[in-house]
């Protein structure tokens, strides 16, 4: 029953959503609208579940003195401070438990939650992602070797697109006469993107789309049960 009832629920929900696309009238349209509202609320709880789980994992690491456990105290402290600021004084468009934080805004220029977001979180996130620029250069140096015809194609396409995607590409081949315009690097890059790349990506989309359709059907029909977890 613990597995059967959710499967039946999934089947009913899935079929109603599918049918409402073809028969949007009562009752299917109304039920689907209600399911969509429920989806938003349950998704919200799923987000909260994620955060609670994160705290649980970090607390356990501190309790059992896992390697580098001192750093996880910082994680929990940061989480607590952010939640406290948001709860007490609210955010830019929301009021907190202690009001709208007008006095604090007069002192620091924005609510504490927004201040931390703008001046700490945003910079941390942006910098984390900008590290990838360095890693991609290092990875390209190490891994982009012309060994086989396939890797040669990959390498040539990558170099042409990288040059064509910048002003340097326009500068390097800007002198070409009009009848050789097709060799102008930005045009070569556009050609590669518009035709062979689109073809390859389209093949991937069709393949992945068919796979997703198959797995969606398997979920609705109750054949795919991995999302229910173990016993």
């Amino acid at each position: 029953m613990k597995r059967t009832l959710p499967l039946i629920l999934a089947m009913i929900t899935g079929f109603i959503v599918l049918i409402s696309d073809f028969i949007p009238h009562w009752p299917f349209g109304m039920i689907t609208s209600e399911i969509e509202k429920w989806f938003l609320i349950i998704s919200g709880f799923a987000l909260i579940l994620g955060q609670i789980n994160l705290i649980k994992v970090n607390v356990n690491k501190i309790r059992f003195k896992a390697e580098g456990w001192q750093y996880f105290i910082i994680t929990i402290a940061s989480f607590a401070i952010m939640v406290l600021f948001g709860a007490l004084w609210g955010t830019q468009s929301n009021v907190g438990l202690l009001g709208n934080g007008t006095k604090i805004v007069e002192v620091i220029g924005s609510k504490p939650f927004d201040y931390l977001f703008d001046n700490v979180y945003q910079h941390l996130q942006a910098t984390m992602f900008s590290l990838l620029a360095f890693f991609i250069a290092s990875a390209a140096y190490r891994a982009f070797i012309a060994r086989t015809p396939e890797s040669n194609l990959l390498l040539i396409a990558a170099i042409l697109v990288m040059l064509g995607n910048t002003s340097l590409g326009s500068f390097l081949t800007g002198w070409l006469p009009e009848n050789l315009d097709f060799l102008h690097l930005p045009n070569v890059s556009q050609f590669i993107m518009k035709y062979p790349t689109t073809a390859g990506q389209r093949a991937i989309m069709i393949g992945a789309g068919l796979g997703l359709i198959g797995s969606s059907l398997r979920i609705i029909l109750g054949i795919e049960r991995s999302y229910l977890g173990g016993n």
Partner: protein
Amino acid sequence: MAAKSIDRRWIYLFIFLGVAFPLIFVIGLPIEITENTQMAYDLIDNTPAGSHVLYSFDYDPASMPELHPMAKAMVRHSIEKKHKIIFTALWPMGVQMIDDIMEQLSTEYPDLVYGEDYVNLGFKVGGIVTIQAMGKNFRSVFPTDANGKKIDKLPIMNNIENYNNISYICSFSAGAPGIKEWVQIGNDVYKRPVTGGVTGVSAPSILPYVNEQKQLTGLLAGLKAAAEYEKLIGAPALATAGMDAQSLAHLIIIIFIVIGNINYWRNKKKKGDK
């Protein structure tokens, strides 16, 4: 003697300097307009004044360097064309992105009135489910705007029920949910023109939607496209400023790829000789 591999920290240093120097000492390399950017521009340019348009900010601060400049340029274009802009976000931090851009543009266009010329509906979790629900009625998803004001009280939302009242949908997307979902519902179900911008990472997988069926009407892909749009509207800004740095960084990566290949083949030849 086998060619030694370069310590990766030298590569990091060259990349850092290659990006920093052109930002300080501007070279001013030319920017050419590409077909996809032109298509997006033409869609906005040819939409009559007074039309209601939907902008969806589906990214977070991590993608700001690429998407913020193009978002600012396209919103600026819409404002100049006197479109009525309805903002929404499928990513929670998209709301901050909207606020940031409108804060900047409001100083340049002080006559803009919130509630009449533009409205921020805010963020709703749910991705494709949210987009689908909006297709039936905006009010079922957004009974109030991002500030808690009932949208029925806002003049811009008079007679605006769903996508049928929208001239085009523009999504700035860093992943899922984003422009793909807008194409799947906004264009393929409700037949609204969809355009927008994506990060360079997503671009190859989204470009197939730019086709004869016009699932996407043009697409801005990455910082270069943002620079192209800035050129088209005659307002060079952050994206344009970054193009020289982009060029030099790409050149450095290509040089290192060539060095890597030379090292590999030299080592292979030496092993073969032995």
